[in-house]
């Protein structure tokens, strides 16, 4: 058996990573909950946002955390426009069609990244990357802690926004009953685009929080898409609480999987959880029904 101290450190690291996954998953679950579409392009759009953060740093010297409002705003506009121009227009009919459409988006985005940015792994060397915080037996990198706190604050902020603001209330009404929402005078089409935009804005935030400790390549999107779907399915499609709990669970699973099974086999935990949840409890931990 492994030393409990190592396991403790593994759990803490997993929770820190999970904190950022929550942000990615909240975006996905929001898009599903409101629009009833499965956004397969989620990982690719995260990858794109990560490149945006990288180039802001490389070309303009903007620190990833300082870039936060800029990237969130940019990602919102990108998502809004993408929905208006493409996804919203053709999202009629079978749900596989939307899956295929967003698959098309992800193929184009992934390969455009490969074409323009090259296949190299890019990282950001922030000056505080080598600073560690001692917590019990674990040494935790400072940027991971900053990102964790920022992610929790942003999720809480989004939660309050969805609960209190007029837009948030209208979006929740739309998620529950779209025809009813239209009847009471809510601009449904615009709110769909806004919801998609908010979902993508979450990715923009996640990208800023990931880059100080993570790397980006054109294939990063594919690495994240299964993680994001697993979290959302585990928590229950469309459930915010589920996305939060699922994010932490998956972060810890990934970290402990790597610890016990090694770098290669450790990744299997996420795919297995995904399969088992879909087979035995497709509504997830907090989901209503499909």
């Amino acid at each position, binding site marked *: 058996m492994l030393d409990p101290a190592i396991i403790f450190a593994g759990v803490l690291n997993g929770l820190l990573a999970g904190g950022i996954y929550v942000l990615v998953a909240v975006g996905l679950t929001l898009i599903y909950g409101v629009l009833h579409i*499965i956004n397969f392009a989620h990982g690719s759009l995260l990858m794109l946002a990560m490149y945006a953060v990288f180039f802001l740093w490389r070309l303009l010297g903007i620190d990833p955390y300082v870039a936060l409002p800029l990237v969130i705003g940019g990602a919102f506009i990108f998502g809004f426009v993408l929905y208006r121009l*493409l996804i919203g*227009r*053709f999202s009629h009919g*079978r*749900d*596989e*069609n*939307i*899956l*295929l*459409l967003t*698959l*098309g*988006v*992800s*193929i*184009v985005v*992934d*390969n*455009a990244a*490969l*074409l323009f940015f090259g296949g190299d792994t890019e990282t950001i060397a922030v000056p505080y990357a080598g600073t560690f915080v001692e917590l019990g037996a674990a040494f935790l990198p400072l940027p991971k802690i900053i990102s964790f706190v920022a992610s929790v604050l942003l999720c809480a902020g989004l939660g309050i926004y969805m609960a209190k603001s007029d837009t948030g209330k209208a979006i929740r009404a739309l998620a529950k009953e779209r025809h009813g929402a239209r009847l009471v005078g809510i601009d449904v089409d615009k709110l769909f685009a806004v919801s998609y935009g908010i979902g993508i804005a979450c990715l923009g935030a996640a990208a800023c929080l990931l880059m100080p400790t993570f790397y980006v390549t054109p294939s990063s999107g*594919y690495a994240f898409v*299964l993680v994001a*779907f*697993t979290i959302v*399915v585990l928590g229950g499609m469309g459930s915010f609480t589920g996305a939060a709990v699922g994010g932490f669970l998956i972060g810890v699973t990934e970290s402990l999987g790597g610890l016990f099974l*090694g770098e*290669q*086999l450790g*990744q*299997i935990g996420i*795919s*297995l959880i*995904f*399969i088992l949840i*879909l*087979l*035995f409890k*497709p509504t997830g931990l907090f989901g209503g029904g*499909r």
Partner: protein
Amino acid sequence: MRGRALLLAAGLAAALAYPLLVPNYLITVGMLIFFTAFIGQSWNIAGGFAGQTSFGHVVFFGTGAYTSTILQVTYGWNAWLSWPAAMAAGAAVGWMIAVLSFRAGLRGSYFALITLAFAEVFRIVSNSVPFTRGGLGMLIKADPRPENFQFRDPIWIYYLALLLCIVSILIAWQLTRSRFGARLVAIRENEDAARALGIDVFTEKVKVLTLSGAMCAAGGTFYVQKYLYIDPSIAFGVEKSVEMLLVSMVGGAGTIFGPLIGSVALTGINEITRWLAGVVPALKNVQPLSLIVYGIMLMLIVARLPDGLMGLFRRSAAKPEQRRA
């Protein structure tokens, strides 16, 4: 009807004569067209005819590739003998995934995503266990003799790919005329209505995925015999899954000739981008460029042309044709 038979005969004659007239490089291009059409057809039978869209079809391809390779390399089997064994393994995996997923009632996007996760599990396992030699991949000893399923002259592997493609088209054609095929179409169009009509939806879906898995696994073995090498990311990576889905969707999902037409279009785009890359030095990366074009085509097809390029041909044909039964 007569015109169509004539067109088919002409197409077949052209395909047979083609390798005698062109250099080796173009023979290999032709081989790849038919091979991709073949594995595309295996996707099309489940994804197109029966409407069970899969994002992880490569799981069958990789199962076939690894089964025949392990039987040859580790157990000394003859390559031709390992081929049916690979197909059986592909069928078994297809059956397993179908029984698990369809018993759990997964449909549409959920089924697509779970197949992706299965492929990922297979990729990670084959990357880690000793009997696949992990990430190193497996090499088949080069010994180009026909009895080893290896050919010195590319013309033979071309003809074999053509044969596979024709067989797969015959299978698809048979589906359009059989009651089994009609039941699959009913399931695709409306599963609940199909059940209400007395169709055993679960059994039919399991059958079609088993068939599709066997076909796709046959493609996996063919691929290894051509390149004599397989590793986890070739065998179970997402690229081949997407390729199979793309050629069927672009050519026309649920049509007999869709995968072949899609495969010709994919290869055509590849060759054009290769040419462009030679002319415009900035575009030195060929592969992403053609995939970008293909991704855009996929979006256009989903949005505007649900029957793919086949639908386009049908619409432009003067006579309104009878749709599949």
